[in-house]
């Protein structure tokens, strides 16, 4: 059989020399590179409590939508994925479409937040944030956009407080946690979560990041950085790369009790779809969600498999359910060029038809 390895020796040596040269030159670029800033779309603080802040984004023009949109992000990682950089900002894009955008920044929990439960987050913090926005606009109900774990929170919230939510959008939100391709769920199935939280207290961000990296260890620990060498001589691309690195690793610890409940009830118990979930003594029934629902998920999502999100359609009580599959991954759905063209306009169109 003929060998499939047809690497030209001269070309191989040239590749090595190029790699070496780029690496050496790139070191100088990296040393001079400052910490990349996020997009920092102009915003005003409208509410704060403990470490939580609610931001209202101020666009150039007046919002055309009648109902404000409150973004509920996950507790994992920071909310700035939604406003990463000027040309990759979901928030900025939504503003340009005419939406009136608010965002909950959960902050960085510390030891004082160790005992915050899901009830504290959903029926406490989130409910008060919704009330603040409702009051500012003199409305009974507002639009919610829940992202990832924040989507699961938004589902619980809407089921428990249906009068306060007009339209619900979920993005890359896990609903059925027991689909066979859910690696995170698979791994934590035999974990003694009580022992884990009792021992660790709050769950360190570094540990969370470590687990995420081991989902695709070669791609995320090695191949990505080898690819970085190719952009070391391009300051703009290098800055974008480092900004993403900042976002990935500048992440908050997880409040111990909320983590315990989330792993036990969602990941291990899959109670959201079983209808056995209890938040603060109240049963969470997805059938109670009768308002319009737009469910957006990513087809190449390695953290929240598409089937985990698709399951929502079978469980919500609404007759106005829309599903949007995005060709990309868990992060690309916010920051890729395709996402900028497709996702915010789709959200705006869908909301406008129901405003």
């Amino acid at each position: 059989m003929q060998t499939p390895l047809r690497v030209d020796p001269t070309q191989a040596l040239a590749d090595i020399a190029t790699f070496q040269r780029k690496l050496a030159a790139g070191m100088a670029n990296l040393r001079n590179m400052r910490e990349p800033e996020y997009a920092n779309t102009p915003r005003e603080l409208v509410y704060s409590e403990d470490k939580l802040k609610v931001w209202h984004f101020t666009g150039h023009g007046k919002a055309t939508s009648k109902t404000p949109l409150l973004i509920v992000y996950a507790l994992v990682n920071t909310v700035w994925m939604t406003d990463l950089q000027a040309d990759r900002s979901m928030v900025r894009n939504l503003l340009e479409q005419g939406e009136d955008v608010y965002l909950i920044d959960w902050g960085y929990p510390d030891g004082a937040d160790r005992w915050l439960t899901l009830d504290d987050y959903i029926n406490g913090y989130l409910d008060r944030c919704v009330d603040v926005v409702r009051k500012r606009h003199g409305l009974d109900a507002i639009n919610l956009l829940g992202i990832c774990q924040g989507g699961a929170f938004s589902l619980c919230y809407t089921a428990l407080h249906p009068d306060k939510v007009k339209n619900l959008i979920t993005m890359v939100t896990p609903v059925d946690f027991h689909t066979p391709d859910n690696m995170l769920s698979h791994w934590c199935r035999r974990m003694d979560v009580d022992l884990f939280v009792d021992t660790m207290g709050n769950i360190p961000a570094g540990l969370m990041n470590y687990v995420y990296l081991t989902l695709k260890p070669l791609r995320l620990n090695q191949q990505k950085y080898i690819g970085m060498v190719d952009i070391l001589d391009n300051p703009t691309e290098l800055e974008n790369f480092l900004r993403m690195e900042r976002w990935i690793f500048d992440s908050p610890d997880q409040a111990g009790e909320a983590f315990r409940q989330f792993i036990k009830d969602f990941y291990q118990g899959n109670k959201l779809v079983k209808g056995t979930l209890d938040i603060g003594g109240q049963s969470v029934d997805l059938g109670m969600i009768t308002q319009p629902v737009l469910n957006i998920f990513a087809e190449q999502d390695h953290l929240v498999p598409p089937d985990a999100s698709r399951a929502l359609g079978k469980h919500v009580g609404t007759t106005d359910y829309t599903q949007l599959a995005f060709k990309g991954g868990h992060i690309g759905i916010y920051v890729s060029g395709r996402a900028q063209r497709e996702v915010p306009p789709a959200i705006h169109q869908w909301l406008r038809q129901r405003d």
Partner: protein
Amino acid sequence: MADPANDFIRDYQALAQQSWDAWTRQFQQPPAANPFAPPPAPAAGNDMLERTLAGLKGYFDWMQAAASGGAAQPATDWRQQLQQMFGGASQPFAQAFGGIDTAGAEGFSRQWQSWLQAVQRGGFGELSGLQGPTPAFGLNREQQMQQQALATALLESMRASARYQELIQRANAEGMQRLQARLAEPGRQVDSLKGLYDLWVDASEEAYAGIALSDEFRDAYGEMVNTQMRVRQLQQQQTEQMCQQLGVPTRSEVSSLGERLQALRREFRANLADGSADHAGEIMALRRELAALKRRLADRPAVPAVKKRAAAKPAVAVKKAPAKAARKPTSPSKSGSGQRKRK
């Protein structure tokens, strides 16, 4: 003659001193990587950068080795060639998936071995638990039991880590097999080192995903985490005891306070909400009462007022009555002022 009381105090003080020494030695240990422990504080500025980029050296070394003795050389057996490039002990990717985990597991073992050595030096005696549980008695009975439990937990943790590592190695081996299978596909041809590397990454990630989603891996992963947590928990218990002896507040005390504080905050908010609800009800009741009173007042004949003021201002009393009546929306013709407002 020995003074038992003084001996006891002296012994206790010596023990406390030894415990303190053991405690301080913990801080002198070099930081060890542990996947289930917070990472060490990042080095400032360019040190961190250089460490990150140092990881790329492995790739660079592999390229050099592959170019000089592997892919770029004509060979009759390409499978053997591939094995040399990716499977040799000297190549940088032999521990591809295990890279972090192996370092982490080693770090974990090293950390706890250091801990055990420190504890032994600190006066807690021999760790008989390493040879299996033995009966404990006397003044230090509890410490002996704890040491045995810690030693047992440590061994279990090492076994669990070894089991996990076996699966990681299996992923490595299957990755190689998949790479060979891909290269054996009809028409497949690789003409650059980067292309070969990317193909190897694809094959290895596929192999890893298959194993990582198996029941065997799930059980091994859970066991590894649980046993490491058990060791950590026992270590925390001993640390807390040292702290108590030294009068240092412990994490469980602080945590307990936090729990109570959070419970109080919940109670306070609930009371506040109940209070607000009560007040809201009370305000609504008062408003209803006020409205009823106004209606009753409006329905009452205005005779006494007219009588009282009749002498002084009879014209005003007469004018007020029609004015009140005009505010009632009795007919469209009387709502002229409202129409003006709308303009």
